[in-house]
C-alpha cells in the first residue's frame, strides 16, 4: 500500500515466424511492460523492422486522420456502435478509400463554390462602383487610338490632368473618394498613369467582353451570386450529412488502425536475430506465474518464458544490472479510495520504484485540511453534493476534485457541527450581538434554547465568557496553536517517510546516520520552540517565566537538536545548519489553516451583518429591504463558497506538495504501462478476434 508493487523481470523468446501470434498474446496478457531494446545491447541481436501490414495500416491511418480533420469531427465524440469484427471487415473491403473519395469530392466541390462566390463578390463590388458612371460597359474598350482608365481615386483628378487632352467622368462615392473613368489618347496614357499614381488611384478591371449597362450586369451578377450561395448551402449540408454518416466509422477506424500500427511496430522495440526474437519485460511479481502460463498456453507452447529476478528495493540490488534494467517501472498499489489521489500525486511526479507512494497520505490529509479550513455546516453541504456528482465523473481530473470536495465536505461538516458550531458564518447558539448573529436568535428562540444540542459541541472559555463552538475570530490564538500542532504532526510524518525511504534504499544503519539526524533535529526544534514560545508569550522577564514546566522541554530540545545537528552535518555537510530555521518556517506555514478559516469567517460576519441589517431594519425595514437583503445574503455566501474552493483547496494542496512531499518525495519513476489494447470507440461481441494477418 505504501510502496509501489513489487516487479519481476522476465525474458520471452520465440521464433520470428510466430511474431504476430506472439504480439497478440503479449497484448492479451495485459501485464507485460516492455523494456525497449537498444542498439548493440546484446551481441547478435538488432532492432527489427515493422511488420508488412503495418505500413498499409499507417497509410490508411493517415487518410483517416486527415478525413477526420477535414470533416471537423471531434476525437472526443462518443460513438459505440461499431463492433471490432465490423470495422475490420469494412477496412478490408476498402471502405477507407471509398470514403476518402466521396468526402474529398464533396469538399472539393465546396471549395470551388467558395472560390466562385469570392469572385462574384468582387465583381459585384466593382459593378456597384461602375454603375455610378454614365458609361456603358462595352464603351470602355475596343478603341484604336484611345485608352480608358477606370478606378477609384482619393482626390478629384481634374486639376492634376490639366494640360492633357482627356475626357473625365467622375462620380463621388464618399467624402473625397470618387470613381473615375478617364479616356485619353494612347500616347498620353503613361503621363496620366503617373499623375494618377499620386492620387491614390486603384484600377478597376473591366472585361472587354462586358456589354450593356453596369446596373444590368450588376443585377445579373447578384442573381448568379444568390444561385451559387444556394449551391454552397446545399454542398455544406451534404458535407454535414457525410460527417454524420461517417463519424462512427472514421473514429472506429482511427482507433483500430492505431492499434494495428502499434502492434506492427513491436519488432522495433524488441531484440531480433535472424530467426528469433527476444523480449525483455517487467511484470508484477504476483502475476509472474499467471503470465508465464498464459503466454505458453496461448502461443501453443511456441514461446519460451524465463523468470530472471524479482527486484528488491535496495539501491545495491540495482547496481549490478545493465542500465536499461536498473529502474523498474512503478505500478502504484492503491485501494479504491486512495487511487483517486494518484492524479494529484502525478501532478508532481511519478514515485520511484523504491520510494513511498504518498497517495494515501494525500488521501487522508488533503480532505482533512480542506474541511478544517472551511469548517462550516452551511458550506459543507453544497460541497458534499457537488463532490458526490464528481465522484463518478468520466474524467479523472473531475473524479479527483470530486473526491476532495466530497470527503473535504464531510470533514467540513463535522468540524462545522462539532468544533466550530457554525453554519454560514453564524453560531448555532450562544451570546447574540450585532456582529455575532446566532441561529437561535434568527429563529426567535431564547438564548441557550439549543442548550441540549450544544452539549455535544466543543465549548471554550474566552475572556471569562463561555463560547459554545469555537469562534474563528475570537479564539484566534487557540486556533493558531492548534494549526501549529497539526503542522508538527504532519511534518513529523514527512520526516518519518524520509527516514523510511532511506531505510528501504540502504538499510537501517544508513537511514539512522543519513536521515535520522533530521528526525532528531525536528523533534529537538519543536521542543525547543515550544518552551521558548510559551515562556516568551507568558509576558514578563524571560528569567522568571522560564519555569520548571518549560525547562524540561527546553533541555530535551537542545539535546535532540545537538544530536540532530551532529548527524546532519556529518551526512549533509555544514550547509544543513542553514535549513534548521526553515523547519520553523515550515511549521509556521501551517498557521494558514487557521488564517484561511479566519478570513472566511471574517467575510461571512461582514456579509451577514450587512444583509441582516437590511432585512431587519435597512430600507425602512419593508418587504423590498427584506428581498434585497436576502439577495445580498445569497450572493455573498455564494462568493465565499467559491473562494473556499480556491483558497482552501489550493492551500490544502500546497501543504501536501510543499511541506509534506518536498521532505521525502523524489519522484522521477517510470509509470508501469503494460501492452494492452484500449478500445473506446469499438467493442467486441465476443473475445477480440483480431489477427492482423487477415486484416490487409
Amino acid at each position, binding site marked *: 500500500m505504501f510502496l509501489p508493487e513489487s516487479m519481476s523481470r522476465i525474458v520471452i523468446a520465440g521464433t520470428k515466424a510466430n511474431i504476430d501470434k506472439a504480439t497478440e498474446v503479449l497484448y492479451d496478457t495485459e501485464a507485460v511492460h516492455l523494456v525497449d531494446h537498444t542498439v548493440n545491447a546484446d551481441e547478435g541481436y538488432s532492432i527489427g523492422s515493422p511488420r508488412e501490414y503495418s505500413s498499409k495500416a499507417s497509410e490508411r491511418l493517415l487518410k483517416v486522420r486527415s478525413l477526420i480533420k477535414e470533416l471537423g469531427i471531434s476525437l472526443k465524440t462518443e460513438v459505440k456502435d461499431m463492433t471490432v469484427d465490423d470495422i475490420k471487415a469494412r477496412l478490408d473491403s476498402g471502405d477507407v478509400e471509398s470514403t476518402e473519395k466521396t468526402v474529398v469530392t464533396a469538399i472539393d466541390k465546396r471549395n470551388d463554390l467558395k472560390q466562385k462566390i469570392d469572385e462574384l463578390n468582387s465583381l459585384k463590388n466593382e459593378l456597384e462602383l461602375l454603375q455610378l458612371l454614365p458609361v456603358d460597359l462595352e464603351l470602355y474598350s475596343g478603341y484604336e487610338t484611345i485608352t480608358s482608365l477606370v478606378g477609384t481615386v482619393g482626390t478629384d483628378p481634374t486639376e492634376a490632368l490639366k494640360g492633357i487632352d482627356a475626357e473625365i467622368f467622375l462620380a463621388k462615392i464618399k467624402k473625397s473618394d470618387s470613381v473615375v473613368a478617364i479616356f485619353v489618347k494612347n500616347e498620353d496614357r503613361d503621363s496620366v498613369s503617373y499623375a494618377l499614381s499620386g492620387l491614390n488611384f486603384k484600377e478597376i478591371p473591366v472585361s472587354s467582353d462586358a456589354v450593356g449597362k453596369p446596373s444590368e450586369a450588376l443585377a445579373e451578377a447578384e442573381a448568379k451570386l444568390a444561385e451559387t450561395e444556394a449551391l454552397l448551402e446545399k454542398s455544406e449540408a451534404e458535407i454535414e450529412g457525410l460527417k454524420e454518416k461517417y463519424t462512427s466509422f472514421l473514429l472506429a477506424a482511427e482507433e483500430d488502425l492505431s492499434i494495428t500500427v502499434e502492434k506492427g511496430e513491436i519488432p522495433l522495440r524488441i531484440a531480433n536475430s535472424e530467426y528469433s526474437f527476444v523480449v525483455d519485460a517487467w511484470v508484477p511479481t504476483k502475476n509472474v506465474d499467471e503470465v508465464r502460463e498464459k503466454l505458453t498456453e496461448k502461443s501453443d507452447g511456441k514461446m519460451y518464458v524465463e523468470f530472471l529476478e524479482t527486484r528488491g528495493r535496495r539501491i545495491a540490488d540495482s547496481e549490478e544490472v545493465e542500465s536499461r534494467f536498473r529502474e523498474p517501472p512503478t505500478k502504484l498499489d492503491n485501494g479504491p479510495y486512495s487511487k483517486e489521489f494518484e492524479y494529484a500525486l*502525478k*501532478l*508532481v*511526479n511519478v514515485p520511484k520504484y523504491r520510494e513511498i507512494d504518498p497517495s494515501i497520505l494525500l488521501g487522508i490529509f488533503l480532505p482533512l485540511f480542506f474541511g478544517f479550513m472551511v469548517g462550516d455546516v452551511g458550506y459543507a453541504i453544497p460541497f458534499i453534493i457537488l463532490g458526490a456528482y464528481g465522484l463518478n465523473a468520466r474524467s479523472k481530473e473531475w473524479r479527483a476534485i470530486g473526491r476532495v470536495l466530497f470527503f473535504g465536505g464531510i470533514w467540513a461538516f463535522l468540524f462545522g457541527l462539532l468544533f466550530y458550531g457554525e453554519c454560514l458564518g453564524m453560531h448555532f447558539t450562544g451570546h447574540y450581538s450585532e456582529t455575532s448573529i446566532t441561529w437561535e436568535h434568527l429563529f426567535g428562540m431564547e438564548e441557550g434554547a439549543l442548550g441540549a444540542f450544544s452539549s455535544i459541541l466543543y465549548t471554550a472559555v474566552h475572556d471569562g465568557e463561555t463560547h459554545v463552538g469555537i469562534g474563528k475570530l475570537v479564539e*484566534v*490564538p487557540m486556533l*493558531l496553536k492548534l494549526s501549529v500542532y497539526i503542522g508538527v504532526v504532519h511534518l513529523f510524518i514527512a520526516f518519518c517517510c524520509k527516514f523510511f525511504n532511506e531505510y528501504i534504499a540502504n538499510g537501517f544503519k544508513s537511514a539512522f546516520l543519513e536521515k535520522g539526524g533530521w528526525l532528531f533535529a525536528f523533534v529537538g526544534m519543536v521542543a525547543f520552540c515550544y518552551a521558548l514560545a510559551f515562556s516568551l*508569550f507568558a*509576558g514578563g522577564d524571560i528569567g522568571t517565566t522560564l519555569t520548571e514546566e518549560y525547562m524540561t522541554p527546553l533541555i530535551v530540545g537542545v539535546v535532540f537538536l545537538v544530536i540532530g545537528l551532529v548527524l546532519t552535518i556529518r551526512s549533509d555537510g555544514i550547509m544543513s545548519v542553514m535549513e534548521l530555521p526553515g523547519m520553523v*518556517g515550515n511549521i*509556521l*506555514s501551517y*498557521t*494558514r489553516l487557521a*488564517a484561511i478559516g479566519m478570513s472566511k469567517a471574517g467575510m461571512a460576519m461582514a456579509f451577514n451583518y450587512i444583509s441582516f441589517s437590511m432585512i431587519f431594519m435597512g430600507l425602512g425595514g419593508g418587504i423590498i429591504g427584506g428581498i434585497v437583503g436576502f439577495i445580498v445574503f445569497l450572493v455573498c455566501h455564494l462568493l465565499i463558497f467559491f473562494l473556499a474552493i480556491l483558497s482552501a483547496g*489550493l*492551500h490544502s*494542496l*500546497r501543504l501536501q*506538495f*510543499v511541506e509534506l512531499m*518536498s521532505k521525502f518525495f523524489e519522484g522521477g519513476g517510470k509509470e508501469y504501462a503494460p501492452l494492452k489494447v484500449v478500445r473506446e470507440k469499438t467493442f467486441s461481441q465476443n473475445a477480440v478476434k483480431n489477427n492482423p494477418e487477415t486484416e490487409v
Partner: protein
Amino acid sequence: MVEISTGEGLIAIGAGIAVGLTGLGSGLAEKDIGAAAIGAITEDTSLFGMGMIYMVLPETIVIFGLVIAVIAIMV
C-alpha cells in the same frame, strides 16, 4: 466611536504594516514565478504540479506577517 489608547493604536498600525508589507513581498515574488510558471505550463502541461509548488512558495511570507500581527494584537 470606541476610545483606544495611543499604544493600542500603534499596535494596530504595526499589525497592519506586518500583514501589508509581507503581502506586498509575496506578491512581488510570486509575480515573476507565476509568469515563468505559466510560460512553462503552456509548453508542457505536465509541469503544472511543479509550477504550482514554486508559485506558492513565497506565500509563506505573508503567513509569517499574519502570525506577527496576531501575536502583536492578541498576546
